[in-house]
């Protein structure tokens, strides 16, 4: 069953001049059909300004379509009476960890959501414990968030969303401000939530390496979905991705360079280990 189902979803906004008169209309999302199955890990790629963040904000009804429809777990996001249920179904994590943490102690921050749902405190603490354990931050529960690293803060932000027990989490460039270790921590955490807790994940990123284990990759350009498929299928199109201001994983790039020089390597190699295996086969054939 599709947990997210968009049909001809479009979002337009007006740019105003200095006097507040409409100057031009911008179609940030343009006729997108979107189907995400429950439990899927879907990555969304696209250059700055391609419409991917605007699309993401529709999934928990921060924005609603100006044309077309979006159903989240069977609920129409245009129906204001369902907005809180939709937001409980789909949680969001943003780029800057410092903008998302409000508590002065890690566990209080994570408990903020459930507390606002009016849960009894025993149940709140149970959820806080579950969530912090799920992101591997339980031992930091009594710490002050501002003493944590960027990756740790992002994991606390993710725990805050997990505490709401959403079926789906949307992450909008959660690793853009992190160092290599922080990036790894966050990606691993998200992958585990997907695999172990079966949370549906939509990950927006500019790091191609974070995408190679996704079930499905969606590429956006000028508000439209222009490519979709498995990582292998998508990253077989090196030139098209480059033309869309994107990139491919480094292993794919090395393989592509070697193909151009005449090595008969298959398309869509995603990891260095895979590339090494293919090269080894080639060497074997040479005998």
């Amino acid at each position: 069953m599709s947990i997210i189902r968009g049909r001809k979803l479009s979002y337009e906004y007006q740019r105003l001049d200095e006097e507040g008169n409409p100057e031009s209309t911008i179609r940030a999302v343009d006729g997108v059909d979107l189907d995400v199955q429950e439990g899927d890990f879907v990555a969304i790629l696209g250059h700055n300004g391609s419409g991917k963040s605007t699309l993401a904000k529709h999934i928990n009804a921060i924005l609603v379509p100006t044309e077309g429809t979006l159903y989240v777990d069977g609920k129409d996001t245009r129906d204001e009476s369902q907005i809180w249920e939709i937001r409980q179904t789909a949680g969001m994590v943003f780029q800057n960890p410092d903008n998302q943490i409000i508590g002065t102690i890690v566990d209080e921050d994570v408990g903020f959501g459930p507390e606002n749902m009016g849960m009894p405190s025993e149940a709140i603490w149970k959820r806080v414990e579950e969530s912090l354990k799920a992101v591997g931050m339980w031992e930091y529960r009594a710490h002050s968030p501002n003493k944590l690293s960027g990756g740790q803060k992002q994991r606390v932000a993710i725990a805050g969303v997990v505490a709401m027990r959403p079926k789906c989490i949307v992450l909008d460039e959660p690793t853009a401000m992190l160092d290599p270790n922080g990036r790894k921590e966050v990606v691993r955490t998200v992958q585990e939530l997907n695999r172990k807790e079966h949370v549906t994940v939509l990950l927006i990123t500019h790091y191609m390496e974070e995408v190679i284990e996704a079930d499905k990759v969606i590429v956006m350009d000028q508000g439209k979905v222009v490519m979709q498929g498995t990582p292998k299928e998508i990253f077989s199109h090196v030139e098209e991705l480059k033309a869309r201001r994107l990139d491919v994983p480094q292993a794919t790039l090395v393989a592509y360079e070697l193909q151009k020089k005449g090595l008969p390597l298959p398309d869509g190699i995603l990891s260095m280990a895979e590339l090494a295996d293919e090269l080894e086969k080639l060497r074997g054939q040479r005998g």
Partner: protein
Amino acid sequence: MSIKIEHLNYVYSEGTAFEKHALRDVNLELPDGQFIGVIGHTGSGKSTLIQHLNGLLKGTSGAVYYNGRNIYEEGYNKKELRSKVGLVFQYPEYQLFEVDVFSDVCYGPKNLGLPADVTEARAREALRLVGLKEKHWKKSPFELSGGQKRRAAIAGILAMEPDVLVLDEPTAGLDPKGRDDILDQIQRLHDERHITVILVSHSMEDIARYVERIIVMNRGQVMFDDTPREVFDHYRELEQIGLAAPQVTYLMHDLAARGWQADVDATTVEEAAASILKCLGR
């Protein structure tokens, strides 16, 4: 003509419970015209270090020499130093504030007290150097894309005509093309103007592709200071401090372990591809 750092220490919140030794006995010489990368995990001291280069932070002890003069000397002209050592912070576009791009780029040279015609000539040159087209110059910074805003902010520093350009993560949050465009432009600037460029980055691939020298910071100390090939040869130690080698380096080590005569010091895609072709007799 160079920057020289001697026995530099910096302690945050000295004498309080939050005391933190951010730099420990740092000694570095940064000669003119080099393209240098600085890497280190969050909290390693790299941002603290670069803020000493133009005197924004003053060392708790030790000295920083710019062109042979100690910048901590009494009466040293810090204002001039800051026009010579340009610092581009992370997300510099948040610092754009003027009504249009051109005025924003003029702000620096205007404050140096330069006449209007010189200021404007410098702004035009700086905007050309970062590759921002003239049709954008009279726009509000808010009308530009992320990559364009970033370039406008860098142009604001270039208009000061610095001899040393320090960039703290200039590509964070940009899409891959935007990232390559900015780094290519910085490279061109380095080649054309022969200025020193110091690039702080979390991307080992970018560092390997552009710089000739890498300084690795760890716990406030300089851990390595060498060419990319030499530094990334220590990839196991880099991993222990939360860093890594460029991904192709791992491929080359993997192949070498399988008995290939692979160049394990390769750090870029081109070097790796060339070595593999050679191994296969192509």
